[in-house]
C-alpha cells in the first residue's frame, strides 16, 4: 500500500520539478537564445573574414611563386629554343622547366619546320592540352597592341580550375617573337587541404564559442533568475499571510532595489495588518470581557428571578396583579438577556477561535427527537429520520444548530416543519423545510449575517439575531456547512451538511449490543 503511494508521490515530485523548470524556461531560454545568436554572429563573421583573407593570401602567394617560376622558366628555357624546335627539343625543354622547386607540369607548343604543331610534355599522363580551358588558350594566343601602357604583345595568363574535385592552377604564356607557347598546371591540393583544416578549426572554434555562450547565458540567467525565484517565493509566502517574510539584500543592482522595495512593502503591510488585528482584537476582547462581566450579575438575577417566579406559581392569586405582571416581565426578559449574552459569548468564542468540539458518537435520529422533544415541538415537526445513523460529532453543538434551524422555520414558516435526514456516505445531510412564504431573493445571501434585518415578510421580533449565524459557525467548526434556499414547492429549505466523522464508526458495534469479553469485532483500547 505504501510502495505505490510512494512511487506516485515520486512522480508527482518529479513532475513538479519539471514544471518548475519549465516555468523558468521562458526567460532562461530567451537569454540562452540571445547569447547564442550574438556568439554565432560574432564567431561566424570573424571566422568568415579570417578564412577569406587567409585563403586569398595563401592562394596569391602560391600562385605568384608558381607563375614567377613559370615565367622565368619560359624566359630561360623556352625562349632559347630554336624557332621551329623538334619534338625532342620541346620535350626536353618542358622537362627542364618542370624541374623547378614549385613542381608544376609543363606543356610546350610550337610549330616545326613543316608548319605542324609539336608538343613537349613534362609528364604526358597528367597534363595535356585538353586540360587547358579554351578561354585561357585564347587569351594566351591573343596578340595585343603595343601601347604606352602595354609594352608586350603577349601576356602571362592564369586560371584556377577544378578537375576531378581537385583544384588546379593553370597558366599560359607565349614567348614574344614567335617562340613556343607554354602552359603549366599546378595542383593546389596542399593549399586546399590547409584551407580546409583552417575552415575546420574555425568551425570548431565557432562551436566552442556557441557552447561557451550558452554556458555563460545559463550562468547569467541563474544570477538573474535566482533572486527572481527568491522574490517569487517571498511574494508567495507574503500572500499566504506570512507577513514577516523578508529578503536578504545584497549588492546595488536593480534586483537589490526590487528586494529592498519588497521588504519595505512587506514591513508596512505587516505593520498595518498588526495594527488592524490589534484593533480588531481589542474590540473583540471588549465584547468578550463585556459579555463575561454581564454574566456575573445575570447569574444572580436569574437565580433570584426564578425564586420570584416560583413564588408566583405557588401562591398565584394572593399577589397584586400588577406586581405579578411586573415579575413575569422581569423573569422573561432575564431569560432573553441570558440567551443574548450566551449567544454573544458563543460568537466571541468563534471569533477568537477558542470554540472547542466535545465529540461523541451519537444516533442522529435520537438526537433530533430529543432536541424537538425538549422544546415541545413534537407536534409541529414532521421528522423523517431513519434510526441507526451514527455520527461522531459534538451533540451540544448539533442541538444548537437544530434548535436554531427548526426554531427559525417554526417562527417564519409555521408548522408543519419537515426535517429529513439523509446519510450520504461520509456526509450527513439534514434538511429543514418550512411551509412559509420562503425567503426573498435579496435576503437569501444575508440570512446567516449577524443581526441582519430581514424584510417585513420575515420579521425578527424575538431572538438575538445571532441564531442562524451561530448555527452556521457550529456547522463550520465540524467541517460542514449550511445552505439556505427556497424550495420549488414553496417554503424555505435549510440544508445542513456535516461530515460523519471518524471511520471507526464502520466497525463499531451498535451501542448497547452484546459484547463478548474477547470479541475481535470490538477493540478494547488502552486508554479512553
Amino acid at each position, binding site marked *: 500500500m505504501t510502495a505505490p503511494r510512494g512511487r506516485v508521490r515520486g512522480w508527482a515530485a518529479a513532475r513538479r520539478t519539471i514544471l518548475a523548470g519549465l516555468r523558468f524556461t521562458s526567460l532562461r531560454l530567451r537569454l540562452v537564445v540571445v547569447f547564442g545568436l550574438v556568439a554565432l554572429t560574432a564567431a561566424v563573421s570573424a571566422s568568415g573574414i579570417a578564412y577569406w583573407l587567409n585563403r586569398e593570401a595563401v592562394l596569391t602567394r602560391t600562385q605568384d611563386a608558381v607563375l614567377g617560376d613559370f615565367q622565368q622558366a619560359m624566359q630561360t628555357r623556352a625562349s632559347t629554343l630554336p624557332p621551329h624546335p623538334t619534338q625532342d627539343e620541346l620535350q626536353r625543354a618542358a622537362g627542364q622547366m618542370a624541374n623547378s622547386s614549385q613542381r608544376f607540369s609543363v606543356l610546350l607548343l610550337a610549330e616545326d619546320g613543316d608548319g605542324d604543331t609539336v608538343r613537349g610534355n613534362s609528364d604526358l599522363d597528367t597534363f595535356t592540352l585538353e586540360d587547358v580551358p579554351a578561354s585561357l588558350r585564347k587569351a594566351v594566343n591573343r596578340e595585343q597592341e603595343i601601347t604606352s601602357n602595354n609594352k608586350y604583345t603577349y601576356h602571362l595568363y592564369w586560371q584556377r580550375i577544378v578537375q576531378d574535385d581537385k583544384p588546379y592552377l593553370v597558366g599560359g604564356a607565349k614567348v614574344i617573337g614567335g617562340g613556343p607557347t607554354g602552359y603549366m598546371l599546378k595542383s593546389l591540393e596542399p593549399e586546399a587541404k590547409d584551407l580546409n583544416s583552417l575552415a575546420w578549426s574555425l568551425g570548431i572554434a565557432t562551436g566552442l564559442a556557441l557552447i561557451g555562450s550558452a554556458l555563460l547565458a545559463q550562468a547569467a540567467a541563474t544570477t538573474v533568475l535566482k533572486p527572481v525565484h527568491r522574490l517569487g517565493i517571498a511574494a508567495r509566502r507574503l500572500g499566504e499571510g506570512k507577513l514577516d517574510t523578508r529578503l536578504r539584500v545584497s549588492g546595488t543592482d536593480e534586483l537589490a532595489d526590487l528586494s529592498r522595495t519588497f521588504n519595505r512593502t512587506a514591513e508596512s503591510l505587516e505593520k498595518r495588518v498588526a495594527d488592524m488585528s490589534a484593533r480588531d482584537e481589542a474590540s473583540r476582547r471588549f465584547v468578550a470581557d463585556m459579555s463575561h462581566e454581564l454574566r456575573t*450579575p445575570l*447569574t444572580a438575577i436569574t437565580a433570584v428571578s426564578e*425564586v420570584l417566579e416560583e413564588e408566583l406559581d405557588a401562591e398565584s392569586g394572593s399577589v397584586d396583579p400588577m406586581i405579578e405582571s411586573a415579575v413575569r416581565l422581569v423573569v422573561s426578559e432575564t431569560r432573553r438577556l*441570558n440567551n443574548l449574552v450566551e449567544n454573544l459569548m458563543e460568537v466571541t*468564542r468563534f471569533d477568537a477561535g477558542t470554540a*472547542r468540539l466535545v465529540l461523541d458518537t451519537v444516533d442522529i435520529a435520537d438526537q433530533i427527537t430529543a432536541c424537538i422533544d425538549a422544546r415541545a415541538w413534537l407536534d409541529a415537526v414532521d421528522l423523517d429520520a431513519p434510526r441507526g445513523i451514527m455520527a461522531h460529532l459534538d451533540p451540544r453543538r448539533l*442541538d444548537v444548530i437544530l434548535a436554531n434551524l427548526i426554531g427559525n422555520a417554526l417562527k417564519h414558516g409555521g408548522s408543519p416543519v419537515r426535517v429529513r435526514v439523509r446519510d450520504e456516505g461520509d456526509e450527513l445531510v439534514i434538511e429543514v423545510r418550512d411551509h412559509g412564504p420562503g425567503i426573498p431573493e435579496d435576503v437569501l445571501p444575508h440570512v446567516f449575517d449577524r443581526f441582519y434585518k430581514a424584510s417585513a415578510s420575515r420579521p425578527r421580533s424575538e431572538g438575538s439575531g445571532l441564531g442562524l449565524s451561530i448555527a452556521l459557525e457550529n456547522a463550520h467548526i465540524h467541517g460542514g456547512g449550511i445552505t439556505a434556499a427556497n424550495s420549488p414547492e414553496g417554503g424555505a429549505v435549510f440544508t445542513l451538511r456535516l461530515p460523519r466523522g471518524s471511520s471507526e464508526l464502520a466497525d463499531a458495534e*451498535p451501542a448497547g449490543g452484546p459484547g463478548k469479553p474477547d470479541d475481535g469485532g*470490538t477493540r478494547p483500547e488502552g486508554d479512553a
Partner: protein
Amino acid sequence: MTSVPSLLLIEDDDAIRTALELSLTRQGHRVATAATGEDGLKLLREQRPDLIVLDVMLPGIDGFEVCRRIRRTDQLPIILLTARSDDIDVVVGLESGADDYVVKPVQGRVLDARIRAVLRRGEREANDSAAFGSLVIDRAAMTVTKNGEDLQLTPTELRLLLELSRRPGQALSRQQLLRLVWEHDYLGDSRLVDACVQRLRAKVEDVPSSPTLIRTVRGVGYRLDSPS
C-alpha cells in the same frame, strides 16, 4: 438520606452567593456558604456537608485546587460552577475530581436537579455482590474492595461501577452512562464519563494505563470485563 441534605456553596461573588443560597434554600437544602477556598475548606472540616457547590474562579486558591485538596481526604460529591461548557476549565475540573459541572448563568432548577441526582448516587438499592477478578463490589454495603482492601470511591465513581457491573461484558455508550449515572438529558457531556472512567481506573485497575476491567469499546463506550 432522610434528613435535609446540607450543602456547602463556595462562591466569591456576593450577589451570586446570596442569590444561589436563596434559591437552594427554597428548594429545600440546608446551605452553608464561603467566599474563599480557604474558608470553604475550613467549613468543610467543621460542618461535614453532604455536597459541595464550588465556583472555579476564586481568589486565593482556585476551585481546581480546592477540589484536589478535598479529594485527598474526602469522597463527597462536588459540583463545579464554571464559565463555559466547552472550556478547558471543564476538563481540568473533572480531572481534579469534580463529579459534575453547571455552566453560569446557573438556573436554580437545573442546579437543584443536578444536586439531587448526585446525592441519589450514594443510595443503595440491591443486596447482592459481584466479583470481577480481585475486585469485589458489595451492593448491600455500598463498598468496593480490591484484594480485600476497601477502595475510597466517590458516589459518582461507585455508581458508574455499579451500572457497569450490572451489565458485565456489555458495552454501554457514554450517553447511556450519562443518563444512568448522571441523570443528564440527551445533551450530556461525554467528558464527564471519560474523566470519571479515568479516575475509576486509577483506583480499581492494576495498571491504569492498560486496563483489564473497564475496557474502552471504540466508537461505542465502555464495558466491565472479568479479567481472563
